[in-house]
């Protein structure tokens, strides 16, 4: 078999160049900078700096507050990823069955996608307003005094809820298109073999959705780790206080609020390594068990 290829070896390089340049400028260069500054304690204005070796990292390891934030991030990511995937899947399966007014249902579920994270956060601030927030009222009815920005757990709950709400539509769109790409013949065959709807779902539909699900899993973990920044910043109203926060928000708090460049660089390097490990693990372990059609 003859391999298709470029005759000129410079042409493919040239075609790749724009992408490579963008990656180099916006990823490798800042990453190298972050790595470099993580070994220094630096005056914010850039006048003085002291080489401290691994100290910024060991300081973080010994900081109980940083560990607490790391645990919250893990919990937050798990909750947001699980619930936004599960809810979206449920909604997609149900919406797939709707015949009359299907478009309206879908549009209604999808439109939240257009809401920007800070706006979603702001809606959360309003819904959980301490004195007149509608959701605060609901909790009051059940005998719970919901205090956003005061109680750690209440604030954490609001963060998780708003982040899930914001992410469900994206997952919904992908799941729905995944469902619709399952061939009708397979569904009909399954219908003959198994009368139980849930049985059919778990044995046939779910495995066929797995590629979509895997893709969404990565997207959602990344979303929960990084893209929820806007939601968190708005919900804590710019004051970290005793509120929960994620590792990314902590990088911002220390670096951009506190001007501790060395410490926040070390934190961002840690995040970078975590994401790297996560990606490798995901692709190595999970992808092996998934069959793309």
């Amino acid at each position, binding site marked *: 078999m003859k391999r298709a290829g470029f005759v000129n070896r410079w042409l493919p390089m040239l075609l790749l160049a724009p992408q490579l340049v963008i990656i180099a400028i916006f990823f490798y260069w800042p990453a190298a900078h972050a790595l470099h500054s993580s070994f220094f304690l630096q005056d914010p204005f*850039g006048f003085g700096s*002291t080489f401290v070796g691994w100290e910024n990292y060991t300081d973080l390891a010994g900081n109980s507050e940083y560990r607490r934030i790391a645990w919250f991030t893990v919990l937050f990511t798990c909750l947001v990823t699980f619930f936004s995937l599960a809810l979206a899947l449920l909604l997609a399966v149900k919406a797939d069955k709707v015949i009359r007014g299907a478009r309206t249902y879908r549009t209604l579920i999808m439109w939240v996608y257009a809401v920007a994270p800070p706006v979603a956060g702001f809606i959360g601030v309003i819904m959980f307003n301490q004195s007149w927030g509608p959701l605060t009222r609901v909790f009051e009815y059940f005998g719970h005094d919901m205090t956003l920005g005061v109680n750690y757990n209440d604030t954490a709950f609001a963060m998780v809820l708003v982040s899930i709400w914001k992410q469900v539509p994206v997952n919904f769109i992908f799941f729905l298109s995944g469902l619709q790409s399952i061939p009708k013949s397979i569904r009909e065959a399954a219908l003959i073999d198994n009368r139980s709807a849930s049985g059919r779902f778990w044995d046939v539909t779910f495995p066929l959705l797995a590629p979509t699900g895997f893709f969404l899993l990565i997207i959602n973990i990344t979303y929960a780790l990084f893209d929820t920044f806007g939601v968190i910043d708005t919900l804590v*109203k710019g004051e970290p206080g005793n509120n929960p926060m994620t590792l990314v928000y902590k990088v911002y708090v220390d670096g951009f609020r506190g001007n501790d460049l060395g410490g926040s660089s070390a934190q961002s390097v840690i995040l970078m390594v975590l994401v790297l490990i996560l990606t490798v693990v995901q692709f190595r372990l999970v992808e092996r068990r998934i069959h793309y059609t």
Partner: protein
Amino acid sequence: MQILKAVAAFGFALAASQTTAQTEITFWHAMGGELGESTNQIAENFNASQNDYRVVPVFKGTYEEALTAGIAAFRAGEQPNILQVFDAGAATVIGAKGATVPVQDLLESNGVDFNIEDYISGVRYFFADSDGKMIGMPFNSSSPIMYYNADALEAAGVTPPETWEEFQSVTAPALKEAGYTALAQSHLPWIFTENFMSRHNLPFATNNNGYDGLDTQILVNNDALKAHFTALTDWQEKGYFEWFGTGWGDNQTPFEEGKVAIWLGSSGSFGGLAAKDLGFEFSATNLPYWETVTTEPTQTFIGGAALFAMSGKSDEENAATAAFFDFLTKPETQYLWHRETGYVPITTAAYELAKADGYYEEAPAAEVGIQQLSLPAGENTAGYRMGFYVQIRDVMNREYGRILTGETSVEDAFANIEKEANDLLSRFARTQG
């Protein structure tokens, strides 16, 4: 060729017009909303007052954002002529020697009379170096004061408390009886830590409150402050005190809604409160103090922010900056700013002007901040100078929040603050090496 000539002519024209034009300077600030409008007004007044200089104010977000933007711009060589830096950022900007031109030097080298004694006592040294040289021009200066709902206090049959002892034994129980939450406050580190130390003339940090060196240790883990926070939790349990979160507005709103009778806020909050239709009479007075800690309470110091002249600018531009600073300290400018915003006038002359104009007869509460700043001074009332202080405040806010939500004890919280703050201070000291 014709085109080339035209372009060249145009270029010359442009160059010529620039040499004769005004010197333009930029001013980055963090004054949003009504404060921003007043800031723009002052800049416009300055521009209209003379023909040589033009100041262009630019709003850069919150105090933290403005400082970060200024630092990033400085590192890129694109710094503004004037940067507004808030109290907690003072150590950062003053520590970076060479980032700014001390305001005192700037004014003197441009032939503007400068005498630090012209400034009100509580304002003078907060943004000064350890020798007392003024580095930043105090622009929007405020101090924490006690606002009260006069109708509520009347209904409860009490007068505003002078001491915390009076508050807990007389005022608070009566207000609770009358159906009010007695007390709320909007900034625990500023009001109940920094100015708590100043009001009681207690040392806040070693090295002359941090002014004299970098190897500073914070002194928050002391009995007076711990007793105060223990009292707060006690009052919270009894329903005398409520904490609505770290955000400023969350604690001010219940006062405006008439649920909380006494609110500790900024003297700069006066303008905003007066502009609102609150549905009750409000007034203000000095922050209470603990008689068990001191019988001779001292002044508080300023919060708010100062204007710094960034270095690396031409002489003409620095002259423009000096002229603008000179304009800012004029009694008329200060009086306008004071009246519009509620920030205190920073010079004695401006204060005298406001008095002579009869302003305090129509708005007595507007005078409280300045009166409190003019109370007797002590060795610990000038202010503080600590690096990474924004983060130290964040640590305080976090631990205080935990105390008030029952997550930690007063003892543990203060031990934590002391440790983390000292770690941050020693880290900061090494950034300067």
